[in-house]
């Protein structure tokens, strides 16, 4: 019990105290941050070892508040909390040397710690009111972890908080309806069907909350904008890892505990999942800003998790959750590598980068591992979770509902999404690390120890999770939540890994053997001319054609006009209303008096006659 309290209130308390320390003492704050997040990691291990059950916290002298302070420590929340602790620590380590720039966010470490505490609060709280309280604080810290130093970044911050705040408001409504329907607002006591108007509204409202946090379509549009301008550690910490963990955690709670999914709900979730996978990855393909590209991938991967959880079977949910953990790992890692690249080069456009692999070998290695993981290449972890999702979909096809009959559609789209992910990551890796070095990049060095260490740790975890998925990871982490899993297919990850390793070694030997013979090295013959800069094709140009493809270009043009951005759609609608009402207020006093009299008369007429 006491561990749980430490977990929530220690970071929040220290975070508030850190406000007092002046900004000039940033390194000290960073060390504090690291110590606290280390302690939190320790406590999250302790909590992970705890027995499951509902805990009721005493709140000083207020018995009526204690009634609400119920914390649900079950396998799901323990799992999520453990990973929050891990990520909190790793990113704190990374921040230590990353957050020194001029444009660093004010109060970064305070908000970092408050985020950490609030995330634990949201994960463990059983009462929906307490949950929404912590959930909302996460939106606030998300807003404060980006600095509005120019037009674009302030717009991103604004957009983020508006969308998150929107989801919170809708969530409040959903919680209100749930309370009304179930007579209780403890998640562990609620279990209702998604039938009836109210039930459906409540279900949708809760979904909005979870989707916006996780960044699923159509509420995704804050993610790419946010990650483009935020410090990379903020992006890695919140949109890439914690928000995914929490959003999907809540989705699992919704689908598994709070509601019983009916056919249409499953179908809807699957459609959203598929659209998110494909739509976001298509957007990612044409990005030139690598942070924004990663942002769209952060959206795209949510689609897999939603698909997995929507299946409703233990296998599907396990797949969704495993993918969530994997995604948090490699996406967080990718943002860290992106941050490293940005810190060393100061550029965030793929066109201006290239050939960094020699100068930043460790970062390159980590980025490569993450890119292969996210693209679902065996034996990395991304492959295993995607494979589980495919298994789940195939298994799902045995059912009788409409969604079940369409299983082949979901499967195709999921596989297609995976292929497109690979395509766009080839672009990223090639654009940043391989290819010809652009001007002005000669003096780039590897990042400092504190920055590459977290990247490498995460990369090793990614590999480890991939290799030992079936043997260790799933049984210890996921199966306590979902129960024993039956796989439809067979995947021996260790033996496959060994095979792959052997093939890599053999390939390397062949490469060495080839290099041992002393070849004559000369420029390729191109008609006697010298190699020009222009003849060296950038890998990025291949992707231009996608944009011009006839069918797709229509969508891309619309996307550029922000037709698919729910934020901009509503913004223009509301501004239109605003214009009309503004015209009515023309400052002419007699008109105002007339309104007064007219209002009076209308009220009289309505009420009396």
């Amino acid at each position, binding site marked *: 019990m006491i561990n749980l309290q430490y977990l929530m209130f220690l970071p929040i308390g220290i975070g508030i105290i850190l406000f007092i320390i002046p900004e000039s003492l940033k390194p000290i704050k960073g060390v504090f941050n690291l110590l606290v997040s280390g302690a939190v990691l320790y406590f999250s291990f302790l909590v992970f070892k705890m027995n499951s059950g509902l805990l009721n916290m005493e709140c000083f002298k207020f018995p009526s508040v204690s009634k609400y302070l119920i914390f649900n420590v079950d396998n799901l929340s323990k799992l999520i909390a453990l990973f929050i602790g891990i990520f909190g620590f790793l990113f704190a380590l990374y921040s230590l040397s990353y957050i020194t720039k001029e444009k660093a966010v004010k109060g970064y470490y305070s908000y970092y710690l408050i985020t950490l505490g609030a995330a634990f609060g949201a994960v463990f709280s059983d009462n929906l009111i307490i949950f929404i309280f912590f959930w909302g604080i996460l939106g606030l810290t998300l807003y404060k972890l980006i600095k509005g130093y120019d037009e674009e970044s302030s717009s991103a911050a604004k957009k983020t908080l508006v969308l998150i705040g929107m989801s919170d408001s809708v969530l409040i409504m959903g919680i209100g309806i749930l309370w009304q329907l179930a007579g209780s607002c403890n998640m562990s006591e609620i279990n209702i069907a998604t039938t009836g108007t109210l039930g459906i509204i409540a279900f949708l409202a809760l979904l909005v909350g979870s989707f916006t946090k996780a960044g699923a379509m159509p509420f995704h549009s804050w993610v790419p904008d946010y990650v483009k301008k935020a410090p990379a550690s903020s992006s890695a910490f919140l949109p890439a890892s914690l928000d995914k963990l929490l959003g999907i955690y809540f989705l699992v709670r919704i689908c598994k505990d709070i509601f019983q999914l009916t056919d249409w709900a499953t179908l809807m979730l699957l459609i959203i999942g598929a659209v998110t996978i494909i739509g976001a990855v298509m957007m990612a393909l044409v990005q030139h800003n690598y942070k924004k590209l990663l942002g769209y991938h952060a959206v795209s991967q949510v689609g897999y998790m939603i698909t997995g959880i929507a299946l409703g079977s233990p296998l599907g949910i396990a797949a969704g959750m495993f993918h969530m953990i994997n995604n948090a790992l490699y996406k967080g890692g990718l943002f860290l590598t992106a941050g490293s690249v940005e810190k060393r080069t100061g550029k965030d456009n793929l066109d201006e980068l290239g050939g960094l692999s020699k100068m930043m070998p460790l970062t390159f290695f980590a980025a490569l591992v993450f890119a292969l993981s996210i693209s679902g290449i065996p034996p990395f972890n991304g492959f295993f979770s995607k494979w589980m999702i495919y298994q789940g979909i195939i298994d799902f096809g045995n059912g009788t509902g409409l969604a079940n009959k369409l299983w082949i559609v979901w499967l195709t789209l999921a596989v297609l999404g995976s292929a497109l992910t690979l395509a766009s990551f080839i672009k990223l890796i090639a654009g940043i690390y391989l290819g010809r070095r652009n001007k002005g990049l000669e003096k780039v060095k590897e990042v400092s120890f504190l920055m590459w260490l977290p990247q490498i740790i995460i990369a090793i975890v990614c590999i480890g999770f991939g290799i030992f998925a079936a043997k260790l990871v799933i049984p210890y982490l996921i199966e306590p939540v979902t129960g024993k899993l039956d796989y439809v297919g067979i995947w021996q990850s260790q033996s496959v890994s060994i095979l792959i390793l052997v093939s890599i070694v053999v390939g390397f030997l062949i490469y060495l053997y080839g290099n041992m013979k002393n070849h004559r090295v000369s420029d390729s013959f191109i008609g006697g001319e010298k190699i020009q800069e222009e003849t060296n094709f950038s890998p990025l140009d291949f992707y231009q054609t996608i944009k011009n493809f006839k069918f797709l270009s229509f969508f891309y043009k619309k996307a550029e006009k922000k037709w698919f951005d729910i934020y901009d759609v509503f913004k223009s609608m509301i501004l239109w209303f605003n214009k009309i009402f503004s015209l009515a*207020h*023309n*400052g*002419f*006093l*007699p008109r105002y*008096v*007339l309104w007064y009299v007219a209002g009076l008369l209308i009220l009289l007429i309505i009420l009396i006659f």
Partner: protein
Amino acid sequence: MIIYLLCFILFLVGLYGVISKRNLIKIIISIAIMEYSINLFFILIGYVEGGTAPIITKGFENAKFVDPLPQAMILTSIVIGLATTALLLAVAIRIYQKYGTFDINKIKDLKG
């Protein structure tokens, strides 16, 4: 009854003035007219058929008095009206200084 109606019509006259007149001073006068109509209304509701002024003097201790309360209220409301009108006029004069006109059509900088 007819007198109440007349009183109400006076109120409407004032309201019409506020809505239709463009001159600040005329608007102020219209408000004053509305005020007087309300004052009149108060006096009327306090009236008792055949009543005398509500002043207790010798020999009139138990006479039939009109209701004194509305008169007290009227007195207060007249004072308030005085203050309102004075302030309105003061502001109107100042507006004239700044805008150079009494025309409400031209005094609409604040809008939207």
